[in-house]
């Protein structure tokens, strides 16, 4: 229903969408000027212009629940011309390009939102996208094709959404032909596998987007046992990702050895070590374990996320198989909201989480996990690393992360790779797997496609029998 200012193409390059040109950086990178298209209409018939874009960004900064993404970056917004906006930044930020592809900055009509400048409009949406909202209820939404759409019109007349509250219902609804397309990230692994097999047999069609969601473990590094780098290093080598991926997700979640998904970093390297039981045993022995002494690690997982529980159980069994004399995992399932609350308080020694950047850029993965505002040797006392529950930092890494904000292109990616390398040596995080968004459709529907942000392109769906 909405459009972004820019998009990222398959090569990772920024391309225009609502903007007519690429962003222009001036004033030592402190000013970003964005030229806008002049042929765009909102669903209420009013024209999209600089004032509308400025209104949207300001509204998001005022009330957006994720407005912290912009906080500290955008100081003010000007509209120098009717179809131009100027963002005045508080510090140079090369990640601003990625930010401009964020769906959070989808423009809304100032006319329709005049009474909702600083409050939510819950049952309507007036944007510029290929569909307009026709009917809204928490469980059902109906979209109709917007005939004044500025770009390629939707290939279908509209979309009817229905939300089903559990994996079995979602799966069953596609199997019995009740729905045309199923989009779900929370569907159970065996059902995901079944759908994958069906698509291979040609009974349904499966579409897959770029893998943008990472699953990882965080270790609390400011308290035993993970305050010892040797223990962290030992654990980094202990996880058999291939086995876990095969057993838990039937190989549909790809093993991952970096924090940044390879799909958004053309220079991506797998910085984290491979599974090596020999090194794990050697390091644990060196740390005083294995000879009659067993290291017990309490591993916390989100009890309301089925894949996390399976992963925890599988890893526990693998540890029992490979390191029974040295290592033991004690599992502890906690509801996700409780984990989020207690993470920064250092409640968990090892905890399983996932993350998806707000925009497809390496910085959106590294900063939220690694950046630190107050450093005391290798302990982060304030910042994202505290919120992440690792409390780990490295002055060198922090400098490299900050420096990358002033770099562009290949040099920037190299700097961010260096950040990852230092982080992998630190061993406060252990990347496990990657999750791609998937959608399944009946065989009379075209193959579902995703954009670079991992969103299903509804406007490309069509009945191919017609």
């Amino acid at each position: 229903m909405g459009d972004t200012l820019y998009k990222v193409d398959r090569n990772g390059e920024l391309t225009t969408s609502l903007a007519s040109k690429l962003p222009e950086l001036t004033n030592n990178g402190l000013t970003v000027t964005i030229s806008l298209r002049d042929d765009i209409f909102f669903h209420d018939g009013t024209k999209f212009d600089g004032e509308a874009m400025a209104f949207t960004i300001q509204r998001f900064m005022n009330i957006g629940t994720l407005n912290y993404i912009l906080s500290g970056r955008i100081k003010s917004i000007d509209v120098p011309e009717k179809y131009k906006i100027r963002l005045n930044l508080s510090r140079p930020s090369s990640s601003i390009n990625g930010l401009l592809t964020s769906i959070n900055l989808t423009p809304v009509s100032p006319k329709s939102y005049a009474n909702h400048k600083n409050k939510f409009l819950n049952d309507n949406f007036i944007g510029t996208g290929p569909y307009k909202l026709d009917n809204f209820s928490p469980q059902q939404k109906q979209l109709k094709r917007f005939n004044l759409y500025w770009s390629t019109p939707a290939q279908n007349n509209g979309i009817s959404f229905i939300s089903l509250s559990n994996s079995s219902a979602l799966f069953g609804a596609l199997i019995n032909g009740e729905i045309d397309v199923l989009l779900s990230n929370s569907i159970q692994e065996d059902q995901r596998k079944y759908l994958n097999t069906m698509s291979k047999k040609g009974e349904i069609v499966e579409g897959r987007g770029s893998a943008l969601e990472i699953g990882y473990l965080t270790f609390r590094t400011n308290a035993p046992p993970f305050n010892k780098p040797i223990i962290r290093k030992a654990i980094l080598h202990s996880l058999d990702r291939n086995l876990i991926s095969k057993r838990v997700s039937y190989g549909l979640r790809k093993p991952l050895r970096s924090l940044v998904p390879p799909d958004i970093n053309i220079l991506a390297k797998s910085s984290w070590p491979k599974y090596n039981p020999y090194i794990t045993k050697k390091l644990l022995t060196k740390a005083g374990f294995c000879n009659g002494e067993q290291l017990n690690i309490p591993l916390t997982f989100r009890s309301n996320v089925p894949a996390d529980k399976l992963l925890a159980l599988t890893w526990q069994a693998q540890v029992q198989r490979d390191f029974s004399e040295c290592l033991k995992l004690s599992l502890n399932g906690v509801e996700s909201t409780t984990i989020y609350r207690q993470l920064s308080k250092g409640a968990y020694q090892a905890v399983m989480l996932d993350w998806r950047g707000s925009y497809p850029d390496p910085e959106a993965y590294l900063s939220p996990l690694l950046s630190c505002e107050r450093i005391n040797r290798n302990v982060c006392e304030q910042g994202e690393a505290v919120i992440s529950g690792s409390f780990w930092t490295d002055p060198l890494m922090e400098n490299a992360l900050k420096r990358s904000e002033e770099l562009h292109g290949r040099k920037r990616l190299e700097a961010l790779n260096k950040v990852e390398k230092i982080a992998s040596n630190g061993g406060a995080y252990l990347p496990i797997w990657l999750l791609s968004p998937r959608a399944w459709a009946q065989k009379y529907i075209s193959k579902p496609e995703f954009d670079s942000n991992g969103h299903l392109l509804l406007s490309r769906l069509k009945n191919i029998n017609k």
Partner: protein
Amino acid sequence: MSRSKALIRYFITRLALAPVMLWIIASLVFLLLRIAPGDPVDAILGTRATELARESLRAKLGLDEPLHQQYIQFIQNLMHGDLGTALVNQEPVSNIIQKALPASIELGVTAFLIAITLGMAIGFIGTSKADGKTDLIGRLFGIGTYAIPPFWGAMLIQLLFAVVLGWFPIGGRFPANLTPPNGTGFYLFDSFWNRSFIDFQGTLKHLFLPAMTLGILLSGIFSRALRLNLTRTLESDYIEAARSRGISETQIIVKHAFPNALLPVLTIAGITVASLIGGALLIEVTFSWPGIAMRLQEAIAQRDYPVVQGIVVVIAALAVMISILVDLIIATIDPRISY
């Protein structure tokens, strides 16, 4: 004091106690929610927000106020009928309840009618043919409805009738490609009132499986209660006297025993109706039924305090009202009851 005066006094006393009960429930919910780990800020912002963003949102939501002030504010608003606004999307809680409650009532009432019809029929037939094959099947059915976990039963029914046979939709309340009827929020009534056969049929098809599942699972309570009470009544002296007067067995059961055996069933029915409004969670979740129980579950996960508090207070109020009503009916029709 005459019986009618005593009844009125009893009714007024029960009504006067209702707000006290609601206050206790509301206070308990308020406190329990704050004791639970995690708060709405975590649920809204996730793990990544900065401390500044968290503090700012906490202040915006009024969560930075001392607990006693939050409590006083909550009770004051409640006394004025203001249930507050949802923390997650700023929607008035009364709107959320207004949207979700009709769905739950529609499901609950239909399930209740199925349960009472089925349960009474099984109980009645079982008693009239006591210790025969029919009675045995009826008793096994009753035990089965107790023993089967509701979500498991619901999933089996869903699998058979929606996935394998494809006779009914797998979930939801209304066909996705149609616009829900405008009106009261009771789709059966609204579509009937608007004379839209397609809407009515769509609503009925969506309602059938969840209502039938819930109805069957509840029917055991009624069949067992009726069978037990009817058997006991049939052994009483006045029934023996009726038999000795040569009245037929059917007449004895229908005219003499049944009305007396019905009183305990009425009490159970009252409790069941009250619990159905908020207690059909597993059925609502399995069938993706957008009722109040499912909304409550979402609100708890999001730590959306005002929504949880509002829903619990409304459910409690309804339960109290139904309970008073049932007590009043029983007190009116049963002369043995003193109050």
